[in-house]
């Protein structure tokens, strides 16, 4: 598998506090990498560094062989992001919000792509409504639709299924797996839901106090820590 993202010795210091310390990992094409860790482990700081919202103190990030954030704009054309904590402007309609981002990502046929995504996420009927009329689950689906506008090669997701109904969460997980398997999209996903990470991730990266505690496939991790499940591993690592 081709390496699509390489993170080497990444560290971030806020004042005297190291939010990330010497984090290294690679992401392969079509792979789903789950990031686990308790609150304050550095998951969000890592995602923010990968998005260019926070500059690392040390280390380097290479997307598609290009140093980041030096080639920020070029890289971010092929990357996208969705978070349960970052919504879209509430005063605009669903269609208008997606149209703005379709232009930001310079889509060739914005209206076609928007229709396709709104239908995929079951939001077509609501396309003319203001975003403020959406429930939190529908908002997350709209954010996922925004994240798929540019058909990203890498998708960064921060707690994407938090607040979703079980059925929609299951559909979202299926969608992410099909993106990974059929379109070869690489996905980095953070979640507090251990079973979700266990189910959909090809590999898991465990963060604690800003450092990588473990990294590998589920089987590798369970074997090396003699754990029965990721939940068991989570407690064995005292996370």
């Amino acid at each position, binding site marked *: 598998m081709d390496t699509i993202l390489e993170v080497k010795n990444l560290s971030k210091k*806020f004042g005297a506090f190291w939010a990330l310390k010497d984090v290294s990992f690679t992401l392969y094409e079509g792979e789903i990498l789950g990031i686990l860790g308790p609150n304050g482990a550095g998951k969000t700081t890592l995602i923010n560094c990968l*998005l260019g919202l926070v500059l690392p103190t040390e280390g380097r990030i290479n997307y598609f062989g290009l140093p980041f954030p030096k080639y920020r704009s070029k890289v971010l054309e092929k990357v996208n992001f969705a978070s349960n904590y970052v919504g879209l402007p509430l005063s605009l309609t669903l269609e208008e919000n997606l149209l703005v981002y379709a232009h930001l990502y310079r889509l060739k046929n914005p209206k076609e792509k928007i229709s396709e995504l709104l239908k995929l996420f079951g939001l077509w009927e609501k396309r003319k409504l203001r975003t403020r009329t959406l429930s939190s689950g529908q908002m997350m689906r709209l954010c996922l639709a925004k994240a798929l506008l540019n058909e990203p090669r890498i998708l960064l997701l921060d707690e994407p299924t938090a607040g979703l109904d079980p059925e929609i969460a299951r559909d979202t997980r299926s969608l992410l797996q099909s993106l990974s398997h059929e379109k070869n999209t690489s996905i980095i996903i953070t979640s507090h839901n251990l079973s979700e990470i266990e189910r959909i991730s090809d590999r898991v990266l465990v963060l604690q106090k800003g450092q990588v505690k473990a990294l590998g496939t589920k089987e590798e991790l369970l074997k090396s820590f003699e754990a029965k499940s990721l939940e068991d591993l989570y407690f064995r690592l005292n996370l």
Partner: protein
Amino acid sequence: MNPRRIYAVILRQVFLYRRSFTRVLDVFYWPTVDLLLWGFITIYLARGGASLPPYASFFLGGLILWNILLRAQQGVSVSFLEDIWARNLINLFVSPLKISEYLVALVCISLIKVAFAFGVMSFLASLCFGFQVFKLGFWLLLFVLNLCAMGWAIGLVTMSAILWFGQEAEILAWALAFLFLPVSGVFYPVEVLPEGLRQVATIVPASYVFEGMREVLLAKSLNLSLLQKAFLLNLFYLSGSLVLFLTVYRKALEKGTIPKIGE
């Protein structure tokens, strides 16, 4: 610099205003109230024996031009705040949009707002008080350019303060420009100011624009050195405020404050 991404940021503001009656009202409301207020004051002063034409021209011309500066500044800083209030800044900053494209888009938005406010005010001034702002001729264009440049410089300083101090600094988006009102000589010549403030006025580009406006209205000619000084000062302030904003933006990335703005 990609025009499509610049268009996207402008489009977001167009959608926002198209769906918000109060925002549209804000563009027209204050200019209209200000203009009517000052227009009637000039009529009252004229009844008291003062000669109407210079007063009306000075007050109404000054007011229309001051609103250009104000709208240019708010067009930049309030549009930035709109993205913070909507918690849209993160989505914008993780897109391929470059910071230079974002700033150019904000300047375009401010020009649109300036054009609307200017259109309304000059129409009302002509209709209600017979004042033709276009009699400033070609100089009007140079006055507008200078006032916009000063407005953008203040807008960039406001944005820097918001990035550095957080949303608590948003009051500056409405207040900072007014700090320059007394020393800009909008409604009176700078020479009436006390010595200290007169010295301050010498480093305020708008003071030269308003002096120039009065000169054109009275003498139908303009001492070019006034415009020269305004241009040079604006060049200095605009470059300085841009450097300040880019430095603060870089610091915000280092401190990791951008994802927290608006929380």
